[in-house]
């Protein structure tokens, strides 16, 4: 079904061709960043090597550290596909981390059962929070940005309430920290989790009708409802997945650090996730989504942060670099901007008003 909708959208082009076209810009940016890094630090940057039975190397580390962001960005992609946005994921990240660490702090941390219970509890609460967001949006008709703002503000307070204002720690010997630091078949566990969630979501949305339903709800919720789609349930499901992904991301982050910081854990990760989704070519208008593009967007953000250090700029440049990326992406996605910037290069006949001296004024009309 998704094949049909894709083919219809790109009017005759093959599915692979359409994918390649949408992925072209993100991949070019990623390639440019990689080339800069290789030029500065040599081929060691990209070529992984095996130390102590696990892959290591700069690029593997980027992927490992980007796994929480990838999970959140994948969930965010589905929410944005329904024309929504989830601002609360950073707070849910903190809550998930806080629940798991607080649960383990008072128990036998080396027991696998306790760790499994902590993980299950954290994911269940995260899913519940996601479902709450979805209910606010779908059933109460609150704007997504407003509905999720409530938990964005209150969520870190809840996380601090859970931890009692402390930073609970988990011993390095606990199986829980393997979620962030361990390796299976030499590949770090966070990369496995990220890949597994990505594969699961792709299968769930592209081999079943769910992807098309998400897109139709995002395109026009009322029309989808009239067409017989339970649009409210679909919306709640999207937020539920986003919440669960955020909770899982919090678990990986907490496992990596061995502690849960309710104030700073996952700070601004919702903004990074939205940025990754937008870089990946999913429009904020909703109605279509692109999980592979999001993944490339996440890798771009992860690589960008390392590139800044590698080319010798101070880490303070991170914010500025992100601002520039946000600005460029927003501009490139704006049809008005493209029309304005391409205007001098168009053949003269195509110009609608060649005598107008001020293009901005013409746009305003």
């Amino acid at each position: 079904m998704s094949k049909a909708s894709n083919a219809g959208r790109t009017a005759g082009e093959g599915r692979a061709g359409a994918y390649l076209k949408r992925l072209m810009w993100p991949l070019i940016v990623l390639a440019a960043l990689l080339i800069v890094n290789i030029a500065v630090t040599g081929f060691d940057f990209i070529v992984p090597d095996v130390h102590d039975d696990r892959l290591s190397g700069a690029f593997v580390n980027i992927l490992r550290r980007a796994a929480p962001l990838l999970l959140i960005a994948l969930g965010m992609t589905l929410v944005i596909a329904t024309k929504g946005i989830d601002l609360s994921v950073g707070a849910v990240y903190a809550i998930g981390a806080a629940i798991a660490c607080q649960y383990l702090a008072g128990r036998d941390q080396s027991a696998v059962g306790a760790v499994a219970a902590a993980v299950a509890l954290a994911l269940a609460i995260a899913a519940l929070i996601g479902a709450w967001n979805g209910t606010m949006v779908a059933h109460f008709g609150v704007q997504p940005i407003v509905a999720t703002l409530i938990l964005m503000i209150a969520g870190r307070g809840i996380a601090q309430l859970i931890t009692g204002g402390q930073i609970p720690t988990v011993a390095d010997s606990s199986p829980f920290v393997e979620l962030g630091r361990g390796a299976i078949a030499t590949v770090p566990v966070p990369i496995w989790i990220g890949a597994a969630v990505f594969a699961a979501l792709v299968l769930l949305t592209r081999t079943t009708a769910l992807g098309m339903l998400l897109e139709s709800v995002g395109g026009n919720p009322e029309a989808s409802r009239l067409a017989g789609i339970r649009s409210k349930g679909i919306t709640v499901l999207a937020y539920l997945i986003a919440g669960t992904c955020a909770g899982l991301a919090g678990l990986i982050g907490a496992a990596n650090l061995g502690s849960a910081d309710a104030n700073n854990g996952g700070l601004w990760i919702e903004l990074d996730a939205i940025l990754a989704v937008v870089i990946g070519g999913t429009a904020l208008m909703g109605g279509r989504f692109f999980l592979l593009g999001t993944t490339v967007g996440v890798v771009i953000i992860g690589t960008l942060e390392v590139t800044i250090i590698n080319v010798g700029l101070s880490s303070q440049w991170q914010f500025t670099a992100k601002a520039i990326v946000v600005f460029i992406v927003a501009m490139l996605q704006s049809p008005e901007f493209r029309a304005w910037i391409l205007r001098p290069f168009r053949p003269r006949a195509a110009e609608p008003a060649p005598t107008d001296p001020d293009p901005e004024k013409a746009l305003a009309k």
Partner: protein
Amino acid sequence: MSSTTLTERPTRSTLFDGLSRYIPVGATVVLLAAMYLGGIARYRNFDNPQLIPDLFIGNAALLIVAVGMTFVILSGGIDLSVGSVMAFSTMACAWLTVDAGLPASVAVPAVLAFGVLSGTFTGAVIHYFNVQPFIATLAGLFLYRGLTLQISDHDVSIREIDFFSWGMERVEFGDPRDGGFSLPYISFIAFAVVIVAFVVLHYTRFGRGVYAVGGSEQSALLMGLPVARTKIGVYAISGFCAALGGVVAAFYTKSANPLAGVGFELDAIAAVVVGGTLLTGGAGFVLGTVAGVMVMGLLSTIIAFQGNLSSWWARIVVGVLLLAFILLQRVLARSGEKRKG
């Protein structure tokens, strides 16, 4: 206003018309009174005459920024960059007076002018290139935080103490022993911003335009209102208010912290919503925002008086208040839709 009596009341009434548009702001005022009276009943010294004025000292910057945010939200937009712009303005005040050696009387106007220019630029990008306000101001959030950190990644003390201590000079109203109180000049700056904003919103063409664009941009355009000027104007006002908030913070703390005001945009948005302004735009009052800021200030005061409550309860209660007000607005909007049909 008198012309409304000449025609039949339209059956397709607008969202918040008549008396019902005062319900959210009325709820805020009732809440505020209940919090104050509850505080008096529960805690000793809560009736101290300095208590209410103190709300306008610590929250002067928040009040100024929230007033700017009110304009943006009324017009149907949102400005996420205010916290970063504020921190950048404070840092720029410090940097211009300490490192660049400029007199403060030059530095402060330069910072305010920067606020207007950056807001104008954001507004122009949003309007002409049809970029979502959320994304355009997100770029500002990252950019100005990054620039602030590049100026300095640690606290900077502000020189020109003579100039910057002016802001905290107090004006006494009566004797503190018999019901008098005192306020510093920064509170009067905040009051002036509120009064100007009130007059602009309710008694000028620009103000009516802000409500019209927030209600329906398409209709405003068809009515021949200057949509471009209005939309760019609100972001310029918000930028100015954020920069002024930064200057007031410089007066208040006499130092600049590169991580000051992280999450400040959320406080400002929360104050506006708790003040009864509709987040989708088109309905609300700037005086409601004043009440919203007072609610948030009083909340921290009560938590301080209680003593055994931790500061995170403030965030949770603000979240609950937000939820309550958003649901109240939905209920009112629903009943408005029913009347339509």
